[in-house]
C-alpha cells in the first residue's frame, strides 16, 4: 500500500467496511421489495380481474351462479318453461290388414253341376272413360270378375245341375201319379158299395197318400234346395200339362229345368272368384268370396312385455292410428282396437291385438303391412323439459333453473329423467331408482330452465365451487 497516504487509507477502509456491510443490507432488501412489489402487482391485477368477473357464485344460495346480462347475451343463452307431462312415445305395433270375419261370405253352389253362366256386372263407367268417354253410350255389361262390387241377391253364377233336374222330374212324376191315383180313388169311391172290394179301396187310398208324401217330399227337397214357390208351382203346372197333354210344354221351364242360380248373400266386393262358364263344380268349392271392405280388420302384434300397458288403457280410449307402410307419406287412419288375443305366438311371444280401421275411401288392401300407433296415457307425476336443457355430468343429470325473482341467477338442480326422446325429456318428480336422493327439490311446471349454455354453466359452477372450497380449506 505504498501508493496510499495513511489518512486516506483509513477513510477508504471505513468506506469499504461500510460498503461491505451496508450495501448488502440495503440493496438486497430493496431488490426483494422490488420483486415483491412486482408480484403484488400481478396479484392485484389478478384480483381486479376476479372482481370484474361476469359470473360468480351466489353467496346466499348453494349451487347458484349469478350471470351478468352480457354473458347471457354473448353465450346466446336461451331458456324454456317446464311443461306438463306428455304422453310417452306411442306404442308401435306392427301388423297387417285383414277382412272382417263377419263381413265376408264364401259363396258355394248347392249342387254339383256345370257352370253355364256367370252373373253380369254393369260397368258403372263406359269404356273409354276420361276425355274420350261418351256420356250417352250405354253401359257395358260383362261377366263378374274379381274386385267387382255386388249387391245382395245379385246373380253370381248359374249351375246346370243334373241333380235338381232329376228332383224336379221326381216332383212332376209324383204330381202326375198323384193325380192318377186320386182319380182312381175317386172312381172307386163313387162306385156302388160292394162293387169295389174294400181291400182295393184301402190300397187306392194308400196310393194317394203315398203320392202326396212323394209330392211333399219332392217339394220339401226342392224347397230346401231353395227352389222358389213360383218355381214349384210352375213345375206342378208343367206336370199337369204333361198329364193332360194339354198345350206345348213351357220352353223356359224346360230350359231352366236343371238350372241352379248362385246369388250374393251380401253386398260387397268379390275378393275371390274361382269359377268360370264350363267349369264343373262341386258343392264344397267356394265359387266366390265376397267381403265388405268398408272397414278392415287390423291384426297387430304386441310383444308380451307390452300387454300390460295395452290392457291398462280403458276400453273407451283404445284408439289407434294406422300408418300404412307402403305409403308412409299419407295421413294416418283412425280406428280402435277392441280385443287382445288370448294366445301368445310361441315363436314370437307376441299376442294379436285386434281392431278395425275405416276404409270407406277404399284405399286399404287386405294383407297390407301397417304400423299401429297407440297413444299411451299421460303419466301423472312427471314434467317435461327440452332435451337441450339436460346436463349430464358424472352420472347425474341436472338442469339450471332461472330464479323467478332474479333472471340472472341460475340454480343447478338435480333431475331424474325417465324417458329421453329426441326433443323432450320426461322427468320424474321423485327419483325412482335412488331413494337416498329423495330430498331433491323437484321441478315444477312453470319453472324456467336454461336450454342453451347449460353445459358451460355447469362447468363454470363446478370450477368456482371447487375453487371456493379450496380457498375455504386454505383459510
Amino acid at each position: 500500500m505504498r501508493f496510499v497516504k495513511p489518512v486516506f487509507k483509513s477513510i477508504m477502509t471505513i468506506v469499504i467496511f461500510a460498503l461491505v456491510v451496508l450495501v448488502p443490507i440495503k440493496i438486497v432488501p430493496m431488490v426483494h421489495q422490488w420483486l415483491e412489489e412486482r408480484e403484488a402487482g400481478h396479484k392485484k391485477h389478478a384480483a381486479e380481474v376476479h372482481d370484474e368477473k361476469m359470473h360468480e357464485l351466489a353467496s346466499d344460495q348453494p349451487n347458484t351462479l349469478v350471470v351478468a346480462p352480457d354473458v347471457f347475451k354473448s353465450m346466446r343463452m336461451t331458456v324454456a318453461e317446464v311443461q306438463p307431462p306428455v304422453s310417452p312415445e306411442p306404442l308401435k305395433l306392427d301388423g297387417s290388414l285383414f277382412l272382417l270375419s263377419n263381413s265376408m261370405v264364401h259363396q258355394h253352389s248347392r249342387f254339383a253341376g256345370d257352370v253355364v253362366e256367370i252373373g253380369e256386372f254393369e260397368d258403372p263407367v263406359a269404356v273409354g272413360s276420361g276425355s274420350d268417354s261418351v256420356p250417352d253410350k250405354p253401359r257395358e255389361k260383362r261377366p263378374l270378375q274379381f274386385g267387382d262390387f255386388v249387391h245382395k241377391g245379385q246373380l253370381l253364377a248359374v249351375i246346370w245341375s243334373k241333380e235338381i233336374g232329376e228332383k224336379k222330374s221326381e216332383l212332376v212324376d209324383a204330381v202326375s201319379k198323384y193325380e192318377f191315383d186320386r182319380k182312381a180313388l175317386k172312381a172307386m169311391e163313387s162306385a156302388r158299395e160292394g162293387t169295389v172290394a174294400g181291400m182295393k179301396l184301402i190300397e187306392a187310398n194308400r196310393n194317394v197318400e203315398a203320392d202326396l208324401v212323394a209330392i211333399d217330399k219332392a217339394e220339401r227337397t226342392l224347397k230346401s234346395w231353395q227352389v222358389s214357390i213360383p218355381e214349384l208351382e210352375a213345375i206342378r203346372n208343367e206336370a199337369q200339362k204333361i198329364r193332360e197333354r194339354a198345350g206345348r210344354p213351357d220352353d223356359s221351364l224346360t230350359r231352366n229345368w236343371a238350372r241352379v242360380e248362385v246369388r250374393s248373400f251380401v253386398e260387397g266386393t268379390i275378393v275371390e272368384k274361382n269359377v268360370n262358364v264350363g267349369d264343373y263344380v262341386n258343392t264344397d268349392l267356394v265359387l266366390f268370396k265376397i267381403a265388405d271392405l268398408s272397414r278392415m280388420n287390423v291384426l297387430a302384434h304386441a310383444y308380451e312385455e307390452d300387454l300390460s300397458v295395452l290392457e291398462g288403457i280403458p276400453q273407451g280410449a283404445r284408439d289407434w292410428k294406422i300408418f300404412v307402410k307402403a305409403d308412409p307419406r299419407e295421413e294416418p287412419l283412425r280406428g280402435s282396437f277392441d280385443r287382445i288375443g288370448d294366445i301368445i305366438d310361441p315363436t314370437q311371444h307376441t299376442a294379436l291385438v285386434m281392431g278395425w280401421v275405416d276404409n270407406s275411401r277404399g284405399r286399404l288392401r287386405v294383407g297390407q303391412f301397417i304400423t299401429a300407433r297407440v297413444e299411451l296415457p299421460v303419466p301423472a307425476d312427471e314434467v317435461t323439459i327440452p332435451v337441450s336443457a339436460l346436463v349430464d355430468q358424472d352420472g347425474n343429470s341436472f338442469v339450471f333453473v332461472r330464479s323467478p325473482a332474479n333472471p340472472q341467477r341460475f340454480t343447478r338442480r338435480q333431475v331424474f329423467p325417465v324417458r329421453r326422446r329426441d326433443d323432450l325429456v320426461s322427468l320424474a318428480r321423485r327419483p325412482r331408482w335412488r331413494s337416498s336422493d329423495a330430498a331433491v327439490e323437484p321441478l315444477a311446471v312453470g319453472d324456467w330452465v336454461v336450454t342453451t349454455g347449460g353445459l358451460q354453466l355447469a362447468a363454470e359452477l363446478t370450477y368456482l365451487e371447487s375453487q371456493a372450497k379450496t380457498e375455504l380449506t386454505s383459510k
Partner: protein
Amino acid sequence: MVGRLLEWAMNSRAVVILLTLSLAYVGGYAFLHVNVEAYPDPAPAIVEVVAQYPGASAEEVERLVTIPLEVALAGMPGLKYTRTKSMFGLSHLRNQFEYGIDFVAARQEVLNRLAMADMPKTVKPQLSPASPIGEIFRYTLNSPKDAVGKEIYSLNDLKSLQDWTLERQFLRIPGIAGVVSCGGTVKRYEIQPDPQRLKEYGITLQQLEKAISDSNANAGGNFIVQGGSVQVVRGIGLIGGGEDPLVKAMDLPTPTEAAAYIRSEERRRVRQIRQIVVTATNNVPIRVEHVVKGGPVRPEEDDLTAGVIVGYQTRQGQIGINRPLIDKDGEELVDQNGQRIMLDEDDKVQGIILLRKGEKSIPILQAVHEKINELNHDPGRLLPGVFLEPYYNRSTLIDVTTETVRENLLVGVVLVTLILLMFLSNVRTALIVAINIPLALLFAFAMLFLRNKSANLLSIGAVDFGIIVDSSVIMVENIFRRLTSGEAVELHVKDRVLRAAKEVERSLFYSTLIMVCALLPLFTMQGPEGQIFGPMADTYAFALGGALLLSFTISPVLCGLLFGNLKPMGDNFIVRTIKSVYMTQLKFFLNNRWATVGVFAVLVVSTCLIVPHMGREFMPELEEGNLIVRGTFPVNVSLEEVARNARFVRQKLADYPEVKLAASQIGRPDDGTDPTGFYELQVFVPLKPRDKWPVPPGRTRQREKHELIEELDDDLSRHVPGVNWDFSQIIRDNVMESLSGVKGENSVKIIGPDLDRLEDLAVSFRNTLSTIPGVSDPGIFRIKGQTNLSFPIDRGKCALWGVNVADVEDVIETAVGGMSFSEMLEGERRFDIALRWPEELRKSTDDILDIPVDVVKNTVTEGTVSSRAATPFTGASSGLSPLGTSLAMPALSGSAFNGASNALSRVPRRRMGDLVTPVNDLGEPDPLAQFVKPGAATISREQGNRLIAVKFGVRGRDLASTVAEAQEKTNHLLKPPYRMAWSGEFQQMQEAERRMLIVVSLALVLIMVMLYLAFYSLLDAFLVLANVIAMSLGGLWTLLLAGLHFNVSAAVGFISILGVAVMEGMILVSSFNSLRAVRVPVFDAIIKGTERRIRPVTMTALTAILGLLPAAFSTKIGSESQRPLAIVVVGGMFGTLLFFNLVPVLYSFYGHREPHHEAGHLAH
C-alpha cells in the same frame, strides 16, 4: 504450424487472394442457396402412431388398441418415452426417442414393431406425418357462391377435392410428409334399411349387404380377336361405372354446371343402388329400394333424402374462419363507421401441409407456392370457381425473422467497422478487419451449405461478429502498431508484417483454443437446447475458424499490400483520451486497491444474494406473429354447441384490430393426427405486423402482445364461462406438446392407477395452482366426463332367445353407428357404402331401445312330446303332451279361414330394450336405472402408467419460482401410489440447467488447464478467470435491469463471452508478465502493460458490444430468442470494461513474485 502458414501466405499472396476470392464466390453461392429456418427443430426423433377405431369408447380403445401397441413398441432401441392417449375412436401413441437416434431408423423400427401388434380386425395403425415444427402452410378451400350467397359446392365436394386431388398434388412435392385435412364432410353413400320392410320381405341385413357388394364390381373377360384387331372383354358392374364425375366437372365452364353435374351423377349412383336386386320371388324382383326407408320412389322423384342417400361419415371436427374482406390492393374494406367488414364462415375445408422432419422449408415452401398458383390459375385443376386461400405461411415468419437478423447483422457490421476506424484512424486497417466479417460469414455459410445444414435466426443472429473478428483485430492491430511504431524500418514490409504477425501467433493460438473450450458447452449441449443452439454452435465455430484462418492468411497479406507506405504515427485523439482517462482512474484504483477489491467483493456478494431470486425460464418465447387460442369445453360437449361458441369467439377475436383473422378448429382432423375431441376449440389467430397495430381508444400507446393476451383472456373468460382458455403460438404449441405430451406450456402429470382418484387429485392441483401468482389458465385434461349411453346386455334375457352379445352389438354398430361394407369407386376416389338405420329410428335413447334384433337361433318345437323308437324289448311309444293335447292350437286371428301371414313369424325379433337392462350404482341390473353413465373421455398414459395432466401457463413471473411455489404447495396432496412429474418447459429447463452446469464446469476446468499451459501459473490462471467473474456480473445485472429471466439463450450468451473475457484477461496478464520477465517493477509493469493493451482490449470489447447491440435492442419478430443472449453479451462486455481495473488491481497483489520464464511469450 501457424508460423508456417503465415510464411506460406506471405510468400503466396496471389494464391491467398485467389483462394479468398474463391471463398467469396463459394460463400456467396452458399449464402444465396443455404436453407434458412425460422426455428430449429428442438425435438428428438418422435414417431407418432395413430390407430383409428371408429365408434369405440376410450376404455375399449385403451384396452384393445393402446395397450397392445404399447406392448409391441416397448423396448425399442433408444426409446425414451411412450406417451399415449386413448379416446373415443382413436388411439394416439407418441414414441419419443433419445436425442441422437436417427429419425428414419426410429421410424423403421416402429413400422417393424407395428406388424407384431395384435389389433382388432378393423384397426390399422399408421404413422402420423406430424412433427413439432412440421406445420408450414395452411389453406382453406373457397367455394363460389350463388346469387343468394349459398356455396355452390357441398362440403362433400370440397372435402373430396381436398382428400383425393389436393393432398396427392402436395404430396408429390419432395419433402412434404403429409397433408392434414380438417373440416368438411367425407362423402358416404348411406343405405337406410327399414327394419319392417326387411322383415316383410324376409331379407336380412347380411343379404342386403351381400347383394350390394356383389353388384359393385367390374370383371375382365380377357380379349377376343375380331379380324385383325383385338377387343378386350369387360363386364361393367361397378355402380356408376367406376367413373369419376369430378373429371368432367372440372372441365365444365361454370360452377353451377359443375355442381349440377356432380349432383346428377350422385343421383345416378343412388338410383343404381336402389335398383340392385336383393332377391326375387316368382320373377318379381325385390330391389334395394323395396327394403329401404320410404320404399320405392318414382324415377322422376329423385328422392335423395331417404332410403339411399349421399351422406357423410361421422364428423371429427369443424373449421371456421372469420376474415376481413380485402380490396384489390390488399387493403381491408371498412364500413361507414370505419370498422372492418368481416366475412365469417363456419364450415370450411382446410388443408395443413406438413414438412418432413429434417427437410428444408424454404425450397419446399416455394414449391408449395408454385403448386398453389398452378392449382388456382391453371384451368381444369380444381372444380370451376374453387380456389385455395392460404392463411398461414411459414415463409412469412422466415422472411420477417431473416429480415430482423439481416438488419441486426448489417447494423452490427457497420458499428464494428466504425469502432475499428475510430480506434485506428486508418481506413485501410479498418477495411482489412471489416472485410473479414463478411468473409468469415461466407466461410460459415459455405461450410453449412457443404454439410447440407440449415441456418436459422439463432444460428446466424446470435453470432457476434465483434467476437468473431477479434483474432483479425489483434493481428491487424499488432501489425499496424508495429508498422507505425517506426521499428525495424530497414526490413521489407513483408518481413515486418510477418514478424508482427508471428508475435501474436501464440496468443492467437491459445486464445482460439480457449475460445473453442469456452464454446464447448455449446457443442456438447443436448436435449432441446442442443437442438436449438447446436446450429448456432456450428455457425459460430465455422465463423470463428474462418476468421482465424483469414487472420492468418488474407489479413497479413492485405496488410503487406496495403501498409506499404505506412508512416510511423501515434495514437489518435480518441485512443489517447481513453488511455489518459483510463490510466488516471487505474492509478486511483491501484492506490486504493483494497477499496477496489472491497467494492468488487460487495458487488459479488450482492449479486450472489440476488441471483437465487432471479427469474429462470427455459427458453425465451420466439414471437411468431400469431396466437393459438385454445378453449377447453366440458368433455361431453357436442360439435354443434362448440361451433355455436366458436362463432362468437371468432367474432370476439376479430374485434381486436391487432388480429388479422381468426380461424377456428373444433375437434380433430379426420386422420387422427391431433388427438383431441369436440371439447377442444383451437383458434389460430395470425396477428398484423406490429407497426400496424393501432393505439386502442383511451390509450396512449399500442398494446404489448402480453397485454393483448391478457385482455383476450379476460374477455373470453368473462363472456364464455365454463371454458378454460389457453394462449400459445403455433410452433411453440406443437413443440411443447411434442416434448411433454401435453398441450400447454407447462403441466404437472399426476400418475396413478385409479381414474376417479386421479380426477379428484387433478381438481385439487388445479385449484391450488390457481392461487399461485403468475400461474395463468390452469386447466385439467380430464379423463372422465364423457357421457356414455351404455346398454348393458342382459345375459339372462338374451339366454331366453339364444341371442349372443355379438348379435346385439352388431345391431348397435350397424343400426346406430353405421357399418361400411363396400366402396363406391369414382375414378381414383373411394367412398364408403354403409348401412345405417334412418335417423328417426336411432336419434334418442327410446328410439335405440326400439331397434329390432333378429332372433335367429331360437327354434320352436311342438313341445316335449317325443316319439321313442322301438327297442328289442318294447314297441314304439310316445310321451304325453304337457299341454294335455297334441292338437294344434287355435288360429291366432280366431278364424282359420281369415289367416294371413305373420310378418314376424319367419325370424322372430326382439327389441333392443328387451335384451338390455340398465345397471344401478352398485352395478346390479335395475330396470329403473339409467342408461346414461359417465365414462372416460381421454385416457392418457406414459410409460405404461395412467396419468392425468393439469396444464398451466406462467405469465408475468418467471417459471422457476412459480413452479417452485407450486411444488411447495402441492407436495402434500399426493400419497403413494400416486406421484407427480412436472413437465413441459419446466422439465426442459431443469434438465437443460443440469446438463449445462456439468458442461460449463468442464469447460472452465479445460480453460484453466489451457491457461495454466499458457502461463505455467495457477495464480495467473485464476487471475484471468477474475475477468470472467467481472463479465458475469455485467451480464447478470444487465439481464436483471432489462427485466429478463435467466434462460438457455442467456446461458449461451455467457458461454459466448466466456472466451472473450478469458482472452482479454490473458492479454493483460501476459502483458504484465512479459514486462515482469524483464524485471520491470510490478506497478510499472501494470501501468505500462495496461497502456499497451488498452487499445486492443477496448476494441475487442467494444466490437463485441456493438456487434450485438442491435440485437439487444431489437423488438422485432424473431428478436426474442436472441435478446437475452445479446443482452448478456453486451452487458458482460460492459462488465469487462467497467471492471477492467480488476485484473491490474489483483495483479498488484503479486508483489515480488516472478512470472514463469515462458509466461511472457504470450505477449506481443
